[in-house]
């Protein structure tokens, strides 16, 4: 974890309001692991913005973000050449990919980017990506390069019609998977955790919480986990953002 300057070397608009940056910083790229995040300083704002690492390259990382409020709107104005002040890499990512392991990735909306690097590192991956509608679909091609990919929309305007959970159950009924990695809105994660439990598949989920320090000092980002039948406090920025779905209370 360092405070570093990373230069935007590529900017893409994936959908209206959703952007992709490639940020160049060798040390951060070399330390980073799938599922970790970075904390971005935006001039004029007291708090940094946490954004997940989407891809890791030799001397750069990729992030994908949606404009949600004032801070991300400011970030969307940034262009190639902008030097960004980041603290990175932060948190605990996914369990390392192991060879011979079959991974099922389940992403919802802006929860799809944090799963891409893990998918890239797995020999065998099937991806289920859910979006509200056609205009929200992102990263389809990126995931297709890694393996079988199901894209679904809530309103059926693109790909399959229905929620990710429907296709998750279908996948688990027809094929044996060793692990699931999921990110998306809380209700979706809750449903996925229940399904993983029912099918007895190891499942990790990436959580979001409002943060101040991003490093584990302020205790601002608490979530509750249950270990050995006891409720305990955990902090998304330091103990997560990735948790075992059977341990975290959603």
């Amino acid at each position, binding site marked *: 974890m*360092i405070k570093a300057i990373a230069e935007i070397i590529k900017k893409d608009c994936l959908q209206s309001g959703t952007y992709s940056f490639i940020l160049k910083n060798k040390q951060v790229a070399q330390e980073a692991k799938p599922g970790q995040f970075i904390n971005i300083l935006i001039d004029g704002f*007291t708090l940094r913005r946490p954004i997940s690492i989407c891809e890791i390259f030799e001397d750069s990382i990729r992030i994908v973000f949606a404009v949600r409020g004032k801070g991300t709107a400011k970030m969307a104005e940034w262009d190639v050449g902008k030097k960004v002040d980041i603290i990175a890499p932060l948190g605990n990512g996914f369990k390392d990919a192991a060879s011979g392991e079959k991974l099922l990735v389940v992403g919802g909306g802006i929860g799809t980017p944090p799963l891409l690097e893990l998918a890239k590192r797995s020999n065998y991956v099937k991806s289920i990506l859910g979006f509200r509608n056609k205009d929200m679909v992102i990263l389809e091609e990126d995931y297709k390069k890694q393996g079988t990919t199901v894209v679904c929309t809530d309103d059926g305007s693109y790909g399959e019609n229905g929620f990710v959970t429907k296709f998750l159950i279908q996948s688990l009924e027809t094929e044996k998977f060793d692990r699931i990695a999921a990110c998306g809105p809380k209700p979706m994660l809750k449903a996925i955790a229940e399904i993983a439990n029912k099918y007895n598949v190891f499942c990790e989920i990436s959580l979001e*919480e409002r943060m101040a320090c991003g490093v584990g000092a302020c205790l601002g980002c608490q979530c509750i986990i249950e270990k050995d039948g006891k409720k305990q406090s955990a902090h998304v920025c330091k103990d997560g953002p990735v948790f075992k779905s059977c341990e975290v209370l959603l």
Partner: protein
Amino acid sequence: MINKMAVNVAGVDFKNPLITASGTFGYGREYEQFFSLDKLGGISIKGTTDKPRMGNLSPRIAETPMGMLNSVGLENPGIDYFVEKTLPWLLTKNTTIVANIAGSTPEACAEVAEKLDATDIHMIELNISCPNVKQGGAAFGTSAKAAYEVVSKVRQKTKKPLMVKLSPNVTSIVEIAKAAQSAGADALSLINTLLGMRIDINSKRPILRNNVGGLSGPAILPVAIRMVWQVYRAVDIPIVGGGGISSAEDAIEMMIAGASAFQVGTAIFTDPYTPINILNDIDKWMTENNIKNINEIVGTVLEW
């Protein structure tokens, strides 16, 4: 060579006047990955209570113009855990350690102080001002009588230098400051956070799960400066000033208003190197202004 930045607050030496504010710096473990804790004047630890506390439900953080709200609610592992597991490690650091303590009754506060009395901790900071706990906390800090009672109870149980941290959420901070002084406080620290609230206009839900929380960050600097100035004129014990400090200029302003030392909190979230930058810039400012000893500037405001 004399250290031009060294200060002494109620008999406690600090190698420089910068203390990291309680609750914003944990115990220093995380920020030690950025810089050596030896550089700091002192560290005020996360508010510690008699028993472990889980704190309030999330969300606990909301951003505000030039600041933030928090409703952490004194999440901490309890005094026994702190004394056994964390304090020995902290005391190996070459900096001054201040134990920030709180409790829901005067007796609970006194018990924590008594346990610290038997350790090598350098100073106790009694928080009578946390806006995030239902009982105690703010209640002690908002009436002179209650403040007097809790400070005296704690005073009876400890010989450690005792600093009392005051709430700004009061009609007259001077009254509370005087009560704490007469109950035996050796120093005062101010200000804690100001009670605030934010609401999501779409869901109509408060952002904080606790509905309300404490405002900190640059937005509160002028309130803190004003209160330090008022209290400095009313009491004889030293003041540690804090609230919204994010630059050397802010810190110097706080000292000119009457603070013998100062605390930095929220600004560390924006930039973890804020404490280091502030210290370097104060050093430069002293050289440029030919100030030989930082204590020279304390309380030198020339009010109209």
